[in-house]
């Protein structure tokens, strides 16, 4: 897409920039059993790009949904343009000038660009749609964003990035004072991001307040004027971007959990003989659009941690190692022999096990019993024609339930009735039953209580000292540094460094994540 030189801004901005157009204060939202947001404040100023920062589960989406009328809040106030408002639907919020563009484009790919912009509010003349006026209006809003897109072209023929810009055009076609962009850059390449940012700046200069959510720190620093940081549903702080060093931002986002867990005793790490062939070795392993090529060695008896913020490529890498996504570049060797993993079945045949990040959607089967869940992977490995004998099954289930301390200790309980931590243990045990040589754990300790967390960490250490290779992914850097022998730091879908787990500290990792290893 070509750009025309930026014209003079459309002077629609409210008068005083010191007056926020949106002011949310003391917003508290409780879901059954969880305080999703606790007394959070957010101020959006006209003509400013405001970044909302926080890790997964920090409450960013909840706060956006409270603003746009998707969720109702339990206490707090929302003031828009000086008057207190409470929206009960996104349509109401939009009528008040608050538009939202989501990560996945919510438009109709089969219709023209013009129609996608004006659909539902087409100009009409004598009872039918005035196509010429529609096109004129679409052209006007595209011109306002300096977008050179043919208004008659079909939306679906354009790349996602252009479709996203058209979605923004639709959002600002109405009288838009606040534009919420939820992860708009997650599927764009660098050039497309630059184009998006140009559009965002043009809107900002015309007086629109923009709320921008992204996991990419570089982008946030490039585009935002102000930031609000959330952690665990609480407000950590609001800063001007220029006044907030990256290191401090990352620390605020990740937080410093107090050393509630006793340090695990590690037998001075597990030394690697220099001549040993790694159990798993990846060279230039990558996938277009998901992960830049990465080198990775995992030796027998070692725990390798993948550290990085959400979206840094840690999940993408584990999925490549399990064959859940196909690598588009590089090669993978197991015990020195080249292997190609085209599907999880092949990975399982190589005795690789993968415990997924999203255990509800991709892992456990809630409506089966603990016993059935435990035996699932082993049965799959044996093939369906060779059922596991009842007694062998019972013995295995009893053994692993005891070893992992699954509670309640009832193999016939339905899995969905177990707590998150115990579900995670069952998922782990399922893979351990298949005696894997390489265990991939993506966020095994997320959302589980601290006791279960400690048990899982201990188990990982135990498994490694028994000779298993483990790849351990976690957003909690303390955990990674504590239990891993080797830490691979990822940032913006690239590997930026590899540290020795025994000699490095959380601060080293934070520093690398913030600065990308260029310091």
């Amino acid at each position: 897409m070509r750009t025309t030189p930026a014209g003079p801004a459309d002077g629609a901005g409210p008068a005083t920039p010191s007056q926020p157009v949106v002011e949310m204060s003391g917003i508290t939202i409780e879901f059954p059993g969880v305080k999703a947001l606790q007394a959070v404040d957010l101020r959006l100023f006209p003509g400013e790009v405001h970044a909302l920062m926080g890790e997964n589960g920090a409450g960013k989406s909840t706060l956006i949904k409270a603003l746009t009328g998707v969720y109702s809040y339990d206490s707090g106030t929302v003031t828009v343009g000086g008057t207190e408002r409470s929206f009960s639907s996104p349509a109401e919020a939009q009528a008040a000038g608050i538009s939202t563009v989501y990560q996945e484009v919510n438009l109709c790919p089969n219709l023209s660009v013009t129609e996608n912009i004006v659909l539902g509010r087409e100009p009409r003349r004598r009872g039918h749609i005035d196509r010429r006026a529609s096109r004129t209006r679409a052209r006007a809003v595209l011109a306002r964003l300096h977008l050179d897109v043919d208004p008659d072209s079909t939306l679906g023929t354009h790349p996602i990035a252009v479709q996203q810009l058209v979605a923004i055009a639709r959002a600002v076609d109405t009288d838009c004072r606040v534009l919420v962009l939820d992860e708009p850059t997650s599927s764009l390449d660098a050039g497309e991001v630059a184009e998006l940012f140009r559009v965002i700046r043009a809107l900002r200069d015309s007086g629109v307040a923009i709320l921008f959510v992204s996991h990419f720190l570089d982008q946030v620093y490039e585009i935002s004027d102000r930031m609000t940081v959330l952690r665990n549903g609480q407000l950590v702080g609001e800063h001007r971007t220029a006044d907030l060093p990256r290191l401090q931002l990352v620390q605020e986002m990740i937080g410093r959990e107090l050393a509630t867990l006793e340090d695990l005793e590690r037998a001075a790490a597990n030394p690697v003989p220099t001549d040993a062939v790694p159990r798993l070795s990846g060279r230039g392993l990558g996938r277009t659009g998901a992960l830049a090529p990465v080198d990775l060695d995992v030796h027998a008896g070692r725990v390798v941690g993948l550290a990085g913020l959400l979206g840094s490529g840690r999940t993408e890498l584990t999925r490549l190692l399990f064959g859940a996504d196909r690598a588009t570049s590089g090669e993978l060797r197991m015990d020195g022999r080249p292997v190609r993993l085209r599907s999880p079945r092949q990975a399982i045949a190589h005795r690789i096990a993968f415990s997924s990040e999203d255990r509800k959607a991709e892992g456990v089967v809630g409506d089966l019993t603990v016993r059935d869940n435990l035996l699932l992977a082993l049965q799959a490995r044996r093939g369906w024609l060779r059922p596991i004998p009842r007694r062998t099954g019972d013995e295995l289930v009893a053994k692993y339930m005891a070893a992992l301390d699954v509670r309640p200790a009832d193999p016939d309980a339905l899995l969905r009735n177990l707590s998150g931590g115990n579900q995670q243990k069952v998922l782990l045990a399922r893979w351990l039953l298949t005696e894997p040589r390489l265990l991939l754990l993506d966020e095994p300790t997320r959302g589980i209580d601290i006791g279960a967390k400690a048990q899982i960490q201990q188990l990982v250490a135990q498994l490694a000292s028994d000779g298993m290779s483990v790849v351990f992914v976690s957003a909690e850097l303390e955990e990674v540094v504590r239990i891993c022998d080797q830490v691979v730091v990822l940032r913006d879908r690239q590997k930026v460094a590899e540290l020795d787990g025994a000699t490095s500290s959380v601060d080293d990792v934070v520093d690398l994540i913030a600065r990308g290893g260029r310091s």
Partner: protein
Amino acid sequence: MTVSDTRPTAPDPAAPPPAGPGGRRPWQTWLRSTTTGSRTFSVLVTGVLLVVLFGTGSARYENFGSPQVALNLLVDNAHLVVLAVGMTFVILTGGIDLSSGAVVALSTVIAASLLEAGWPAPVAIAVVLATGALLGWLMGAAVHHLQLQPFIVTLAGMFLARGLCFVISVPSIPIRDPFFQSMAQDVVELPGNTFLTYSVFIALAVLVAAVWVLHRTRFGRTVYAIGGNESSAALMGLAVGRTKVGVYVISGTLSALAGLLFTFYMLSGYSLHAIGMELDAIAAVVIGGTLLTGGAGYVVGSLLGVLVLGTIQALISFDGGLSSWWTKITVGVLLLVFVVVQRLTTRRARPGT
């Protein structure tokens, strides 16, 4: 961001001609980039096929090429044109209406039995149309409010309508009403010693109205939007529910109207009329280039689809030596070919391929 997918916005005299990168010719760019592009292409293919079929017939059989043979395609299929137009509305939203053939039969039976009972023709016609609209509304409401599969709902509607025919009358009822008689027999003389029936004009009027509704009203554009992405359409604030119910009401009403045209044609009401006619309509819609998944296609294509079916039938009856089952076999093969062509063109229309 690439320039490749967009044409220059305005005709700029200074700009070079729109030669796409990668040696893509302007017409290919047009095919890829315009709303009308690949769908117009499908309709064109159907049009060319129609001309080829008709040309083949003219070359092989004496008198096939006479103007009246061509006009008879419309005369004999006016009811199917109306049925296919209604079906196009439903298929554009991504739905299907299996009840339409049975509604045609029900319409013939209701019309015939009311006329037999001495009702005036206009009242009988109004009752038939209202019945079709009501059945359509019931099915549309079930599809939208109960979120049931259109396939199952309209299958139930099909059995219901067909069953009602038998409740009203098992034997065929002849029609002697003067209005229906005149609609069946009177023709409009055209130059060149040719003629059309009134039914043809009704069918063409329906077609024109459908084109206007689909392309120039919010209702019509919402039909396309729902076919493109229903949840997006809802998030864009469009009247998804009203529109979804609306297309079934339209299909039901047009099925009843098709039933009236069929009654004019057959001059009888019979429970076993129009068996499988809904499938002919679906075939015509698909051959006319409309995607079964919804969101893309034209009613004009459906007209061409009906004419293609009619031409195949004419070819086989002119031959005389072939069994009429060859019609079905040819239509089956054509349908398969068209679905494959559709798959290939939609694949091409996606970005990045």
